[in-house]
Structure formats: structure tokens, C-alpha cells
């Protein structure tokens, strides 16, 4: 395992700039998640680190070594692809053994066998070692893909939305397992996703990517409670953060120059009003999700969505009075105004 350092990394495809001026240090043993929408440059960043793409600008260091010009094989990284990419003509065992059988490594058959069985146990696939890789279920395939990355103790693991093609239940299970394995072996891991739950639950630090830029990097809590700008605020939180104009809702104190207010559930107070005249909005409709409700409120024609206790007793059409409690303020440049 090693520290990975990206400096001023840039990559364009034709006229479109996939990654620009990326500076990022991933500490030894750290789990960093890059979060961003499709086309934000997440996958390109991983491919640059892996050596599958050549950067136009900047440098990549793994440990002490500058690897910018090296081939993928020389970099000692492991990659887990979104679509598993198990070799379809090989068995599970041979898939796991494939990296160890590389001519660049000189492992004996006995060492390979022992190592593969160890890893298979760790990713809980040891009962399927003789199966053809195409005969596995999606979850099993992804375990093998993760196992294939783990088998040779690389300096860094790169994972490109490894869980995105699995169903929700499996995704939740593998999320926990991945985190367990990572802390067990103290792996340095760069993980790319567009799923905020994966980011929030697994990451030591989250980096938010937008249009090839690293907009903000910090602990999940930091990113959630103190987003640098509107874009970052909009990436996290469920339901989606409410972006409203100042003045729409009453707010105790507001700094100067606010153009947009970001309000999540915890920033909004909703009380039942006796009549329409006394309140400033009304309940538009309620979505029942079981353990909680999504409350959709209309204020002056603008919709505000927040989580609510399913037993709160609101029903569609009820007049309510809505106010803000220490929301997030954003200025004209969309950056968050911090000096409240």
C-alpha cells in the first residue's frame, strides 16, 4: 500500500475536457470516494491512475515513484470494473489466479493456490472456485472481480462503480463487506460512484467532481454539512436539497448577498396552521415510504420536499406554516456564504 498523489492532472478527448487541474492526495490506507454525475470525469481519473489513459498534463505519483509515463503493468494498481470483466473462458479459480500467473510475477503453483484460496474465503466465493465465471450470479461475479483485485496486494485499489449493476439488497451487503475488507487489510482505495449512499457510508473522505474539476474534498460529514457550493450541496441528501429564493420563507438571520438558500429537512420547521390565512403554505401531497414520509409542501407556487415522521398526522391540503432554521446560504457565484 502507498500514498497516491495527483498533481495538476488533465486529460481531454478531442475538444471535450474530461479532467482539468486535478490535485488529490490519497493517504496510505485511506478510502477515498469520488462522487459525481455521469461525465464528470470520475472514470477518466481512475483510468489515468491505472495507466489506461495518458494524461495531457500533470503527474501521478504512487509512493515515491513518478508513474506518469509507466505502463499499467508497471504501476502495481488493481482495478475493479463496473461490468466485472471476468474472463469468460476461465473458471473462478483461474480468474483469481490470473494476476498471479502474469509472467511479470514469478509465483509457484503452490503459492498461487494458497493465495487464491485465502482471497476466495475473504470474498466468500470459496465454494464456487471450480465454476465457470459466466455461471455466477451478479453478486458472485462482483465478489470474484473484487477478489481478483485483492489477490496481489497492489499499492492502490481503483474501483469504478463496482456495485452499480447489482440490486439494492446485494449492493447494501457488498458495501458493508467491501468496507470490512478494506479496513481488514488497510488498503488504499479510490472508489468512484454516483451513489451518495455508497459515498457517505464507506468513505474516509469524499471528493465531489463536476465537469472534470474536483470541487470539494472532505469527510462525509464536512461535505454534507458544509458544502463549498450549490453543486456540492445538491449532490448529497435525500430528498434533494430545496433551493429557494431569499424571502420566500421566514428566516431569523441572513447574511448579505444571498441569492439562493439551500434547505434540507433539518433546516425546515413545519407547523400545522389553523387556517390558510395564518399559514404560508399547504401540504400538496404525501409519499409514504414505510418508515418515513416525503412531505411535499407548496409555498407560493414553489414546491418544498422534506422528510417527515409518518405519524405526524399531516394530510394533503392541510394549511401549514413553514420557516427556516439555520439553512445554507449561497451567493451570486453559487459559493456558500460562511460568515453568517
Amino acid at each position, binding site marked *: 500500500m502507498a500514498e497516491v498523489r495527483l498533481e495538476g492532472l488533465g486529460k481531454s478527448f478531442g475538444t471535450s475536457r474530461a479532467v482539468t487541474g486535478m490535485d488529490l492526495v490519497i493517504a496510505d490506507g485511506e478510502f477515498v470516494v469520488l462522487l459525481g454525475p455521469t461525465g464528470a470525469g470520475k472514470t477518466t481519473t481512475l483510468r489515468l491512475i491505472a495507466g*489506461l489513459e495518458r494524461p495531457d498534463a500533470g503527474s501521478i505519483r504512487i509512493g515515491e515513484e513518478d508513474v506518469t509515463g509507466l505502463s499499467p503493468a508497471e504501476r502495481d494498481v488493481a482495478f475493479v470494473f463496473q*461490468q466485472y*470483466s471476468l*474472463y469468460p473462458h476461465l473458471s473462478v479459480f483461474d480468474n483469481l489466479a*490470473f*494476476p498471479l500467473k*502474469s509472467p511479470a510475477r514469478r509465483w509457484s503453483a503452490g503459492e498461487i493456490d494458497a493465495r487464491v484460496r485465502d482471497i476466495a474465503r475473504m470474498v466468500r466465493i470459496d465454494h464456487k472456485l471450480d465454476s465457470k465465471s459466466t455461471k455466477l450470479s451478479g453478486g458472485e461475479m462482483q465478489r470474484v472481480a473484487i477478489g481478483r483485485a485483492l489477490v496481489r496486494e497492489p499499492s492502490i485499489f481503483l474501483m469504478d462503480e463496482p456495485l452499480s449493476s447489482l440490486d439494492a439488497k446485494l449492493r447494501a451487503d457488498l458495501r458493508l463487506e467491501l468496507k470490512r475488507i478494506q479496513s481488514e487489510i488497510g488498503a488504499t482505495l479510490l472508489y468512484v460512484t454516483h451513489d451518495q449512499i455508497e459515498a457517505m457510508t464507506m468513505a474516509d473522505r469524499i471528493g465531489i467532481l463536476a465537469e472534470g474539476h474536483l470541487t470539494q474534498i472532505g469527510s462525509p460529514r464536512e461535505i454534507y454539512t458544509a458544502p463549498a457550493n450549490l453543486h456540492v450541496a445538491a449532490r448529497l441528501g435525500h430528498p434533494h436539497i430545496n433551493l429557494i429564493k431569499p424571502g420566500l420563507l421566514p428566516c431569523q438571520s441572513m447574511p448579505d448577498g444571498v441569492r439562493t438558500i439551500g434547505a434540507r429537512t433539518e433546516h425546515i420547521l413545519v407547523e400545522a396552521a389553523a387556517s390558510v390565512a395564518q399559514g404560508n403554505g399547504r401540504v400538496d401531497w404525501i409519499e409514504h415510504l414505510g418508515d418515513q414520509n416525503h412531505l411535499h409542501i407548496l409555498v407560493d407556487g414553489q414546491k418544498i420536499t422534506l422528510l417527515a415522521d409518518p405519524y405526524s398526522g399531516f394530510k394533503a391540503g392541510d394549511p401549514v406554516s413553514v420557516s427556516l432554521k439555520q439553512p445554507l446560504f449561497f451567493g451570486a457565484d453559487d459559493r456558500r456564504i460562511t460568515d453568517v
Partner: protein
Amino acid sequence: MSGLSSAHSVVEPGIWSKRIAGTLVVIYALITMIPLLWIFATSLKSPPDSISYPPKILFTPTVEGYCNLFTTRSRQTQDYIESLGPPANVCEEIARDRSMVVVGASKYWPRFVNSLVIAFGSTFLAVFLGTLAAYGFSRFKVPLADDLLFFILSTRMMPPIAVAIPIYLMYRELGLSDTALGMILLYTAVNVSLAVWLLKGFIDEIPREYEEAALIDGYTRLQAFVKVVLPQATTGIAATAIFCLIFAWNEYAFAVLLTSGTAQTAPPFIPTIIGEGGMDWPAVGAGTTIFLVPILVFTILLRKHLLRGITFGAVRK
């Protein structure tokens, strides 16, 4: 809805459609088999039976055709034949019944070996070069790739025999006339365009991630190609090899034009088998039957791949 669900889905054909389709396939197979059976039957007929009219469906089989195919004979007087000892084998016996003696082996076997060398040699070369070129076109940014591919395909837009005279002159100058090497090069040149196009389709379908995974796992590009791409391209390679082999094996026009002696293949040789008083049809039938065997064996060996291969990757898993 009743609790009983029918076994077949909406898209699956019903039992009668299947039976009709099955019957049609059997009829078609029988029709296409008739010429082959006819050839095989002719090879087992005696020369008079082979040209009798109406054709004989039932006849006494004999190996005379095969004997005539593999031997040369000369006519001798009855006294001379009687002065010989007992016949050494069945062919001599048949020859003596016709007042002839076997004087040596015919040229069929060397011609057959020529066919094997030239057809398999050119197939191997065409598939080898085609795989490499197809991989290059599929994976790398080749300048003017589309134009190059069109150029490669355009070599098939005219009948090959249209360039027969230039090739004949060229081969004569280069000393390639009537050589196995010349024929291998010629068939390779014709087949390589087919091979590039077919194989490019198959290799395009193999996701790049497999090679990328192998590159990251510590393999060079060549090693990744051999260990990851080739095993997955076997279906395409097998299908391409069969198409190339069938062309090279059956090719007649260039073989007639460019070979006459040492490098002559079986197709131009078989029609030259002339017995006494016209074509020796049983021998021609025997030569054709034996000529069909290698293609038959090759196709059956690769049948599993071919079935998937000729659907051009549509059902590749």
C-alpha cells in the same frame, strides 16, 4: 386465468410450426445430399453401370473406381496375364479381369497432398494475418481506417478470375508458376480480405475491459491478446477458417491456369482421369469422394464453433 400455465411462451413457436419447420429442413437436407450420394454411389459402380441409362439405383458395388483412381494400368495379352502369378491384391485382380495389369501408382495422391498443403497453408496464413489486422483495426486508431477497410473489401468486388492474366504473367516472371508457395500466396491474398472483415466483427464484440484488466494485472499487450482475446475469438476464428478453407480447397480456375505439374491440386486433376473409351466415371467419383473427406472432417470438428460463428456474434455469450 386458470392455474394451469402452458409450457410455451408467446415467442416460442407452437408444436405444429416446429414440425413443419423440421420437415422442411429434412427435405432440404435430402435434396442437398442427393449430389453427394450420387457421387459416392458412382464411385462404387463398375464403368458400364456408371453410364447405363436409365441410371441404376441398385447395383453390385465394386472398388474398381478406387483402384483405377490410385493406379495406372496397361493392356496386355491374355497369354502374358496368364503367365503371371496369382494377383497380389484386389486391384490387380480387377485389372486382369479387364485384360490389364497394374503398372504403378497414379498421380492422384501427390495431387491430393498438394491440395492439403496449399489449402491448409493458405487458410492458416489468411486467418493469422486476418486476426492480427482485425485486432489492429478494432483496437487502435488506424489513420484512414475506414478507407483501408474499404480498400481491403474492394479486392472482393470483382471475380478473382478477372485478374487471371496479369497474375499469370506476374507469376511467370517471379517464378511462382506451378509452385505450392505461389498458390498459397494467391489464396491467402484472396482470403485475407474476408478474414479481416469477419474477424473484425468478432473482435469488436469482445469488450476492451478484458484486455485492460489483463494489462493492469501485469500482462503486456501481446500477452493479453494471446491469453484473453484469442480464447474469446475462437468462434470467429473457426468460422473464418472454414470459409477460407472451403474457398482454397475448391478453387478450380486459378489452379487450372497456374499449376500443371508439381504443384497441381486435386480439382484440376480429377477431370483428367480418362479411362479407355472416355471418362472413367467411377474413378472420378472415387476421387471426388475422397476429396470431400478433409472438408467434412474439418467442418465436423469445428461444427460447435461454426453454428455460433455463422450467426456473426448475434448470440455470443
